[in-house]
């Protein structure tokens, strides 16, 4: 199995510790922006209602409120929200994304304003073509506005622990009988492949039987390729049992 590792931005602290941000893909960003567009449309409808009320007193002022209000909402929406919510808009919150400084520093208002004002060029010639292509080809998945403002859009880390007792109950685990190999396995398994295995085990009852066999075979092959356990530790284990034992090794030590 080949798990495509998402693009990441790593930062090394002066203490020598390295942490990384998972960069948002153009597709996720587009989805977040479509939610934001819907929010802007709602905001504009609200302005329209206010304008209707004002129109009862003065039609000219009501039209001016509409024109200026629509414009202000479309420009100010993302700037204000990203500033007040530390890099998030409604769409980004829903999709678990956050705008961050490329050096991991605090996001500043000029950066937020710049990245949003430069949308006008990222949107050219239609449907964010310039921004989308730049995002696909740039090293840190940045559109032009992000490059100018030194920002990235990262996926927020969700750190919920799986219920290991449900997916891999504490029984005798032949892999744990090999503590050095178990430790090695824990050190080389990527969070993404572990999460994939957890998801596969959690949803296993819903799969087509044949698909289930194929899926667990691929997962088991992937984990076997990382660490070779001796034959006596893995004999009589089906692929699915092997994957569940691996999960117990990865998550079981922590209670």
């Amino acid at each position, binding site marked *: 199995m080949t798990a495509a590792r998402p693009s990441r931005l790593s*930062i090394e602290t002066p203490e020598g*510790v390295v*942490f990384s941000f998972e960069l948002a893909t153009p597709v996720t960003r587009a989805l977040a922006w479509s939610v934001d567009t819907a929010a802007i449309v709602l905001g504009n409808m609200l302005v329209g209602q206010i304008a209707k009320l004002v129109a009862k007193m003065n039609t000219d002022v009501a*039209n001016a409120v509409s024109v200026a209000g629509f414009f202000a909402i479309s420009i100010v929406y993302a700037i204000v929200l990203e500033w007040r919510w530390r890099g998030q808009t409604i769409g980004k919150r829903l999709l678990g994304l956050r705008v961050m400084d490329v050096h991991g520093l605090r996001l500043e208002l000029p950066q937020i304003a710049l990245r949003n004002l430069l949308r006008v060029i990222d949107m050219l010639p239609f449907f964010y073509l310039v921004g989308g292509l730049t995002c696909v080809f740039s090293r840190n998945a940045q559109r032009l506005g992000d490059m*100018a403002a030194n920002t990235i859009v990262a996926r927020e880390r969700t*750190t919920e622990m799986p219920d290991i007792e449900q997916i891999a109950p504490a029984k005798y685990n032949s892999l744990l009988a090999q503590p050095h190999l178990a430790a090695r396995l824990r050190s080389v398994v990527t*969070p993404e492949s572990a999460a994939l295995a957890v998801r596969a085990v959690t949803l296993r009852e819903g799969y087509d039987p044949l698909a289930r066999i194929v899926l667990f075979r691929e997962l088991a092959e992937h984990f076997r390729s990382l660490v070779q356990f001796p034959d006596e530790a893995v004999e009589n284990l089906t692929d699915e049992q092997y994957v569940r034992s691996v999960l117990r090794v990865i*998550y079981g*030590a922590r209670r």
Partner: protein
Amino acid sequence: MIVDMARFAAAERPYWDELRALLEGMDTDPERRLTLAEIQRLHYLYERSSAGLARLDTFSTDPALRGTLESLVARAYTEIHETREPRKIRWKAILLGFPRAFRRHLGAFRLSVGITVLGCAFGWLAIRMDPHSKAVLMPFQGLLNSPAERVHQEETVSKDRLSGSKATFSAELMTHNIQVTVVTLAMGMTFGVGTLILLFYNGVILGAVAADYIAAGFGTFLTGWLLPHGSVEIPAILLGGQGGFILAGALIGWGGSTTRPERLRAIAPDLFAIVGGAAAMLVWAGMVEAFISQYHKPVIPYGLKIAFGACELTALSLYLGWAGRE
């Protein structure tokens, strides 16, 4: 070496939870200033968590635990290593920050003026040499009539044609001009080529209109019509051009030893100040254009309009040239 991961996690978890609570408190109330004791504690917790992350990095680890700790250290890093003051809205700083930013990049403004003047010269010469080019050079229907016809119409009009729509017209002008300014700035990302084209094109239109009216002997009408709003609107668009060239300069970075991200980081506050200032100027210009510029003799004498425009231009020059000088 971490011999027992479970024991390590159990021993460290209270510190991680304390750090998380401290960071969430800062997220909820960004304006709050930490006490010295809180800062010291934050630093201690950050160092401790970083050390824990380093140990997880070196030895066998549970990916979820690593992810949790990595996320915590990343958030704490942002707070610990940020040396810039949190930006607060202070009107005095905003009012003085704009002219200061403008003066820091006078070269880019001069370039912006130079390109526009070149465009004006081109438009002027084009109209003087080939009057038929008017249809191509002037994109607005209202400008295609002969100046004499237009001036006659404006000076003999019996009723206010903007009656009941002045506020709307004003809002339309503001939004359109702000869009033009933002696009002119944003085009700096094309290494200044887009900014240059837009400024030149604006200059061509301006030069063509000026040539058309002055050649027909209506220079006073033209000045009275354009100066009240143009004395603010045109500099605002030139400021957009200045922003575009600042951006382009940071992208190109001739002769400097700093990296492109460093250069872009350095100019961001100035670009923000300039585009914000230009937008405020265009709100004013939109009101003046709708409520004053469209009224001509005998409603408002040209001398008064020109004097008003000259006063605005002088005030703007004084503000941009001298406000906040140290």
